[in-house]
């Protein structure tokens, strides 16, 4: 009994050591997904509970950060607003909607584009992106996960990570262009 509780303590401490430093990143990511602070808090809290409960199934040597983000993302997708978000995408036909969004009519070089687009515009443009594109930008540019880690977090092959990321950046550029042209 003593040994068991000692082992449990050691394990949950190992978990805390790995998981707590990710707290700010997970929260930021959760807010970007849900766009609602209360919901993001629930999401982060539930993800920690799930990760702790499933920590024994986590294989040491694999990437913990990708594993945590994967849990959070799956929890989100199974939540009410996550289901609603994915349903909208499915209805609009994922690929077609993204393609339309990524359709570049007249290309402005980023250098000129970003001169006109301030931080606020970039945020707005990010918020307009469908969740599958928004999340991959967050993984690649904000969390700076490697392609391999992103592939683990999203459970997709690395080739798909690359094409999806290219689509996401194109879509973002397009959004920005629209905003710059409107102003």
């Amino acid at each position: 009994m003593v040994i068991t509780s000692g082992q449990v303590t050691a394990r949950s401490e190992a978990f805390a050591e790995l998981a707590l430093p990710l707290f700010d990143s997970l929260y930021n990511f959760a807010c970007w997904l849900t766009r609602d602070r209360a919901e993001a808090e629930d999401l982060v809290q539930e993800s920690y509970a799930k990760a702790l409960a499933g920590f024994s199934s986590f294989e040491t040597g694999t990437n913990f950060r990708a594993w945590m983000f994967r849990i959070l993302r799956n929890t989100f997708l199974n939540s009410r607003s996550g289901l609603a978000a994915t349903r909208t995408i499915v209805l609009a036909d994922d690929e077609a909607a993204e393609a339309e969004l990524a359709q570049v009519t007249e290309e402005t070089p980023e250098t000129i584009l970003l001169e006109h687009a301030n931080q606020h515009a970039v945020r707005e443009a990010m918020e307009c992106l469908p969740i599958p594109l928004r999340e991959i930008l967050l993984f690649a540019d904000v969390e700076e996960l490697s392609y391999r880690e992103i592939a683990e977090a999203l459970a997709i092959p690395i080739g798909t990570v690359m094409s999806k990321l290219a689509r996401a950046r194109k879509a973002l550029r397009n959004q920005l262009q629209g905003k710059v042209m409107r102003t």
Partner: protein
Amino acid sequence: MACELWLDKLNAFVDGELSAEAQRELDVHLRTCTSCAAEIAGHAQLKSAVKRAASRRYVPSAEFRRRIESQVPPRKRGTRTRFAWTWAPALGLAAAILLAAVWLARRPAGTGAATIGELVDMHAAALASANPVDVISTDQHTVKPWFEGKLPFAVDLPDLTKTEFTLLGGRVTYLGQSAGAGLLFQFRKHRLSAFVFQDRSEWRSLGAGSAPERQASFWVETWSAAGLRYFVVGDTSGANVAQLSNLMKSAADAE
């Protein structure tokens, strides 16, 4: 416009994902190709603009940080006992007082009481949560199959049509690393939780069944049947908790 050959690799370049060989080749190419160089500068700018705009865009409140830190890790007893020797007399006294309090309150002893406390916390957390359930349904025929494959046992739900109770939904909950069912019910303006787990030997002290007991202003009834351990938690009254418990019991018997 970037050269055809390199167009696909510009993203990988700014993400630092090119192989060493491809990286060298691109470096050579960039010395002579201004359009690719401009394209890469643009890609890099966009990447850093996203980072600036989106990282730490949302910062958690201090209160929420404390909440998570107290949740992870859930037990810190191991680290404390290592330094406990100087505190041994005080701890002994505290333990004696605690034991006396537990005995006086006639609570189920040991892990049983801790379990009840944890479940009351889980019920309170569900009440405070914006998303207390994962499957939202008032229909027991929707909620029961939802648990299939998620739990190592079947959850029998009561027929509430002729009662004042309504089912709000369910979720998978965890207690001591094993999964169980968390069900949320409504009675007028109040909400009650029912939890079902596989029974454990350490819960023997809780008994096979008893009348609801009061715990931190909540009423809790627990019983064990057919290898499962049930808990019903509510803040309405002992009678309501007993009523819901009876409904749960008859549902399990009916199956």
